[in-house]
């Protein structure tokens, strides 16, 4: 199923919540409003036409200087039934959810795809996006007392951590 068809299905289902569709290029994706994302996730997984059964990746993306951060969910639908018992790649799509830079909230989809658990923690850790309803909302890669979210473009490197001076070179 091509990305355009998926986008059409989503459009009929969610209407205006689907704010943008890029069906061509090396990374076809749709953008969906944050409020309806959880609902859309369940739909993407359970709809018999889509069956997005694996969440491959969740990435944060800072759109600095625009005041947005996007969360990119890469989904794939794998089904059995190919030659020699191989599974077949039915369709692939990325979904983007755009939230404000400060205090952006997205519904966690860890209950839809458990794979989202750690990925969302990572995005929350490095971008500061808040995932509502996450089962285990701790920092994952950085220490618990780390200040700031390093993958944001406006992140200022700390000069010390826990009394340990950090060597910071001049910003390029």
């Amino acid at each position, binding site marked *: 199923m091509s990305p355009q068809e998926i986008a059409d299905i989503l459009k009929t289902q969610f209407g205006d919540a689907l704010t943008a569709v890029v069906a061509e*290029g*090396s*990374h076809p994706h749709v953008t969906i409003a944050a409020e309806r994302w959880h609902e859309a996730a369940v739909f993407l997984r359970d709809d018999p036409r889509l069956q997005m*059964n*694996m*969440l*491959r*990746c969740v*990435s*944060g*993306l*800072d759109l600095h200087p625009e005041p947005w951060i996007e969360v*990119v969910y*890469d989904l794939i639908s*794998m089904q*059995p039934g*190919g030659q*020699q*018992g*191989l*599974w*077949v*790649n039915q369709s692939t799509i*990325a979904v983007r959810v755009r939230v404000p830079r400060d205090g952006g909230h997205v519904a966690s989809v860890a209950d839809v*795809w*458990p*794979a989202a*658990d*750690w*990925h969302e923690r990572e995005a929350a850790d*490095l971008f500061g996006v808040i995932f509502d309803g996450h089962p*285990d909302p*701790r*920092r*994952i*890669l*950085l*220490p*618990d007392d780390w200040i700031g979210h*390093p*993958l944001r473009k406006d992140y200022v490197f700390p000069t010390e951590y826990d009394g340990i001076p950090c060597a910071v070179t001049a910003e*390029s």
Partner: protein
Amino acid sequence: MEDKVVHGQPDLLTDFDRQRVAADDLRTEELLINMGPQHPSTHGVLRLMLRTDGELVLEAIPHIGYLHRCAEKIGENVTPVQFVPYTDRLDYLAGMNNNHGYSLAIEKLCGLEVPERARYIRVLMCELNRIASHLVSFGCYGLDMGAFTPFLYAFREREYILDLFEATCGQRLTYNYLSIGGVTQDLPGGFADKLAHFLDYFEPKIDEYNNLLSYNYIFVKRTAGVGVVSAADALAYGLTGPCLRASGVKWDLRRCVPYEIYDRFEFDIPIGIAGGAIGVPREVVVGDSWSRYFVRMQEMKQSVRILRQALQQLPAGEFRAKVPAALKVPAGEVYLEVEGARGQLGYLIVGDGKKTPRRVKIRGPSFCNLSIATHVCRRVLIADVAAILGSIDVVMGEVDR
């Protein structure tokens, strides 16, 4: 339990842990054990908090990040060509595959065409590195199970592969060989003979190691039926690579979404098979630790097959495309996955026309594979935790990035 010192070890609990275990800890005599980050069978600096009742692990909570080296942040601040060496450090046991994924993603984004010969060399290197990586996995898994000797055998064979790599690119661990537009230099003279020589020697060795370890009664008893991951769970948790295939899902990017030139080779995709079939002990359940381990053993054979075919078809010609000296990452984005040694290694690269990309996201397969640990390590014995972790085969460089 006293507050300040948890039985001789400094208090490493986070507030969250404390909330989580406090309620249960009062009830019975449960131990809270800190496994790692310095532990022989956590393969690097993984740390697990084990909540145990004697030997029985009630819950295992992984804590990662001890090897976080800001790879993604670095990726945003250096040019793609400069970033290739950094990818070596992700899954440091299969550096070639990491180079490969990143190079492919950048080439796709920039629209670069790679010469035929370079593509074959890439396949040769990736498959060799897959064998080397699986050998480490095989050896270390034996070590986790208490069998020391297979480890040394595995490392002996891996040394030969590293010798080949050293002859090719001068490096033994972090290669920076598969770079954007092809490979950095041509194969050395006599490489084909040496490799064929090695393959003839190595292929029968796999059967030998199966006899030594895979079919060992104690080994089967230790691993079969332990840490069973159903196909549904494997998909839901985003498991890929041998871990996914062991659960019975015949999915391999090299066949299902062919990239590079993998569609030109004939090879099988080994998957986990229920016990009782030929070559599978009776105790085995699809998706258990033994299946995950054995899929790797079989994959080595398939890699040998691919290597033989690639050697046969290896064309002459350029080994590198013309890459502009000041390569700019065009505006646009790409998400590309390759089948790494441990699963699908994905790169999301977003460019905005500058020299450096706006965002480099790395989907480490170990990161996703490891996330199932809590789910699987429930009501198992401490020894089983080592068995499960070893069969998932994580490389912390890739988990923490």
